[in-house]
């Protein structure tokens, strides 16, 4: 890693370009930054519901994977050497909730567990893999984790008596706390990176806010005592969020301090002068779904690039409800997935699958073109794409479709198609967390082992 005196000038230029005012790469302290020459490792999950048309998704063999990928994953061909596919990962068996394939495909995706059957009317599942990572690395960035989705969940159904929020959430901060995803790209951009057009002006945090919040939290303890247990939980959720605001203010203060030190000529960032500048994010004007998906991908890239967060989830679309008029038909995704032998429907589902993978490919390719440290941004990330069903026609879950991209700082060996993996969804999540260096006190969900074949 090169250290140059001109770095702070460069940084200012970057900021101008991206309209970024707030999210400078954050760091704990000068010493730790100087010591850690390697960029941090980040992990992202991107979701598509209802599974894939299997024979248009899986390559026949390693050679086909690299050189003649099937239609659904064709968009990845230019970066296939950065990708890893493994066939044979099974999902969580949902036997006790047989009638709830769609309520469970998203909610079991990162938890690898079933909801608690006796309190199914309420959310009670398990902390999700992304939030486990956020607990471990979240304190080092201004945002512990980032949750995105393309549109609001409009589908309402209590399959098997399960709470309808199981349909729409993949991230769970605790068994009872689903994390809502942000759907408005403009909101994300403003909140992560300040207002556009005011590049020079750093959003100032009021120095007294932190201490004021501290007093408010103290006062809330009295209120808490007068409440019933269930009400205390609700209040705690808010108080937790106030605490996270306190922490975020601390992060901003520390960043301001860093900026001041830099001004005084003290080099303090782990960002290398030769790193690519933060990408520019354009909010789409129309209502094309692919453009909305792309801007969410861009925001993920920007958040990773600026080390605003190290773990993110992106629900490309939620079960039921989504349609893709730009593909030339207005049918809803789910209505086509029970295709039986209808070739027309198979064609439509494949087109939807292809469009989803293409957005993921857009993100991965862009990351591969961005320099970071000794290599690319993608080299330091693991980007997972997948679905919670193998195939929407029969709701199978024996062989879930997953694609990994990025080397996770050297933990993964990419450019491979592993055709005969034996493991489950929990095993995969557990392995990924081990790749990004998150220690676990127990495996995730139904996991029983690591899938070492995917590691470098």
């Amino acid at each position, binding site marked *: 890693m090169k250290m140059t005196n001109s770095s702070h000038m460069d940084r200012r230029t970057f900021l101008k370009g991206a309209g970024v005012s707030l999210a400078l790469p954050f760091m704990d302290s000068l010493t730790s930054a100087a010591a850690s020459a390697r960029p941090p490792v980040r992990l992202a999950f991107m979701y598509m519901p209802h599974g894939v048309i299997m024979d248009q998704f899986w390559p026949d063999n390693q050679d086909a994977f690299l050189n003649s990928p099937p239609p659904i994953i064709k968009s990845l061909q230019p970066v296939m050497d950065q990708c890893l596919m493994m066939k044979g990962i099974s999902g969580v068996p949902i036997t006790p909730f047989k009638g709830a394939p769609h309520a469970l495909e998203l909610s079991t995706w990162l938890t690898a567990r079933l909801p608690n059957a006796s309190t199914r009317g309420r959310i009670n599942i398990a902390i999700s893999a992304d939030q486990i990572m956020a607990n471990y690395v979240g304190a080092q960035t201004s945002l512990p984790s980032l949750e995105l989705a393309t549109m609001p969940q409009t589908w309402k159904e209590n*399959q098997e008596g399960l709470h309808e929020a199981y349909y729409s959430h993949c991230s769970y901060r605790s068994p009872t706390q689903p994390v809502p995803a942000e759907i408005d790209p403009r909101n994300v951009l403003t909140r992560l990176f300040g207002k556009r057009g005011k590049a020079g002006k750093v959003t100032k945090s009021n120095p007294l806010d932190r201490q004021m919040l501290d007093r408010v939290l103290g006062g809330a303890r009295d209120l808490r005592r007068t409440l019933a247990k269930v009400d205390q939980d609700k209040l705690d959720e808010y108080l937790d969020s106030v605490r996270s*605001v306190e922490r975020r203010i601390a992060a901003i203060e520390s960043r301001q301090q860093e900026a001041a030190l830099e001004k005084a000529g003290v080099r303090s960032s782990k960002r290398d002068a030769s790193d690519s500048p933060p990408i520019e994010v354009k909010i789409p004007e129309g209502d094309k779904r692919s453009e909305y998906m792309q801007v969410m991908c861009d925001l993920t890239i920007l958040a990773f690039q600026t080390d605003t967060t190290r773990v993110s989830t992106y629900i490309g679309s939620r079960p039921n409800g989504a349609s893709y008029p730009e593909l030339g038909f207005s049918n809803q995704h789910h209505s086509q997935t029970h295709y039986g032998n209808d070739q027309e429907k198979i064609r439509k589902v494949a087109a939807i699958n292809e469009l989803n993978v293409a957005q993921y490919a857009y993100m991965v390719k862009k990351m591969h073109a961005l320099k970071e440290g000794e290599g690319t941004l993608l080299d330091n990330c693991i980007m997972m794409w997948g679905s919670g069903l193998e195939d929407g026609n029969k709701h199978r879950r024996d062989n879930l479709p997953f694609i990994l991209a990025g080397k996770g700082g050297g933990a993964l060996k990419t450019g491979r198609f592993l055709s005969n993996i034996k493991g489950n969804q929990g095993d995969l999540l557990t392995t990924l967390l081990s790749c990004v260096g998150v220690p676990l006190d127990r495996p995730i969900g139904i996991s029983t082992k690591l899938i070492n074949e995917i590691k470098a």
Partner: protein
Amino acid sequence: MERAKLILSQFALAGFLSVSAEGVDEAALREEAQKVFDEKVAPFVKKYCTSCHGSRAKAGINLASALKNPGGESASLHWKKAVANVKVHDMPPEDSSKKPTDEERLQFIKWVGKVKYLSKRDPGQFVIRRLTKTEYANTLRDLYGVDTSIADSLPEEVAGEGFLNSISSLQSELFLGIANKVVEQIMASKGKGLTANQKRLFGEELSKGTDPYKAARGVASSLARDAYRRPPTDAELDVLVDVYELARKNKLNHTEALGLMLKAVLVSPQFLFITPAGEPKSKESIVLLDDYQLASRLSYFLWAAPPDAALAALADEGKLHKPEVLRGQVARLLKDKRSRALFDGFGAQWLRVNDLDRRVFDPKTFPQMTTILRKSMMEEARLFFESILSENQSVARLVDSDYTFVNEPLAKVYGLDQSVLGSKMRRVKLTNPNRGGILGMSATLASTSFPNRTSPVLRGVWVLEQILGERVPPPPPDIPELEEQARSEVEGLTLRQRTELHQSEATCRNCHKVLDPIGFGLENFNAIGQWREKNDEGLAIDSAGKLPNGKSFSTPAELKGLLAQREADLARNLTERLMSYALGRQLEGYDDVVIDQLMVKIAKNHYRVRDIITEVVTSYLFTYRRIKG
């Protein structure tokens, strides 16, 4: 009527009474219910249901625990689901070895109706909840004179997830950011005199010789009284004065320090959550809501906004809980323009038209579904709902009326003869009996359709569940959708014939023979509510059908007429939904008994909608809360 005999008049506010004026006592009812349960319900359930719906709880219906504690809170939902399935012969399944006779089914449904008397008398707890986005914005508007758009950055709530309302890390600082903006807008710029708002909230500038801390405590007390919707405790004032002190010690002047104090108020959970006021001293396990809680519950129910000065004064005087005062306040609040929140927050969700602006319509088939038209459709639904309410009309008029509200784009969709020009909505008299009421309204018809075609099934479910308040069992998993029927099979068939094909399957038939006729009765309305004589395939539409009670109809107008006759069902459904919205919880157990009593009162004056709201507000459930047990 049997139900009328059971009624306990003036019961709701009598609190401790267990014997009514008519001499029917709850203990006797409970005893009878227990007997019916032991002798009839339990044997039926054990014989036909528990082999699947025992503790394994197939499809989420657990009758084992409901048998153990039939009057328990959680049991009532299981009973309701069980009744719904048994009623339409959906359960026990066709292939089961033991099946009840029709007579047994009817008896079971009747017996389960009595199970509610086993529930203990209980108004439910006062559940704390965070202000919704709308309530939060309205509260800032009413208290601090800021525009409601100040809260636009908050995420939209997902309906039905009310109790979740969790916040992500990204969202968590929004409340602080908005508080910052509010304070910024209130404060005068440096060197300028105080703004009017500042004077109102913070008082005049500090005069010489005044103790600033004493003055700050005074301001804290009035800010917190409004923001916490009750008088603050001493400890709460200490916290705020502490914040003031923090600011002063950091060289902020008096006014700036009050600004920080206001910010602290705005991020306090006492402001963001509707909380009970302190611990009641009573030894009773059930107490009246105190007047402050009552004022909040009432104003957020009807206005989605905080109590105004008049309500706050009544609470301070301790008069609000008196039934005649409460009735007067309901009438007053409903006259205020803030009461449009009742449609925005309740009506639109009830009618399922709340996401009309976001729904996808096939642009090729329906190029006219522009933002303007969608807005006009919503406006029609709102103005119609509000007219029924403000004129205190019967619920039957919601379903069947001879007027509506239109502007030019809507009049085109309806093909009205009258000339209606411009975008302004106006009330028009309808001559076509097929229109008029929520069943002939494009907002609801479009909201119950697919992007490119109508869905008789969705419309049927909508009428049964949303309008009549019946429970429709969910479809079994893995069922094929209509579109999957092989082409050769459906060629030349109308949608009705195709759907009837669907009905030939045993698993589908029982429910669909109830749902489909209603949906097909509305087939003359296309997927955005335009009238048509022929369907998409060019075949003539046959909208004739029969309701489960055997009454037949041949046009949408006749269908509406039949549904409008079911005033008692319409009113009960609306009452239950309003009650649930007002309390912020699902109804269960004892709630049914209270609703029965309200229905008797509401029936006396032909089920008028404003009467329903008044009865909800003065009810036992609205005015009491359980604090123990």
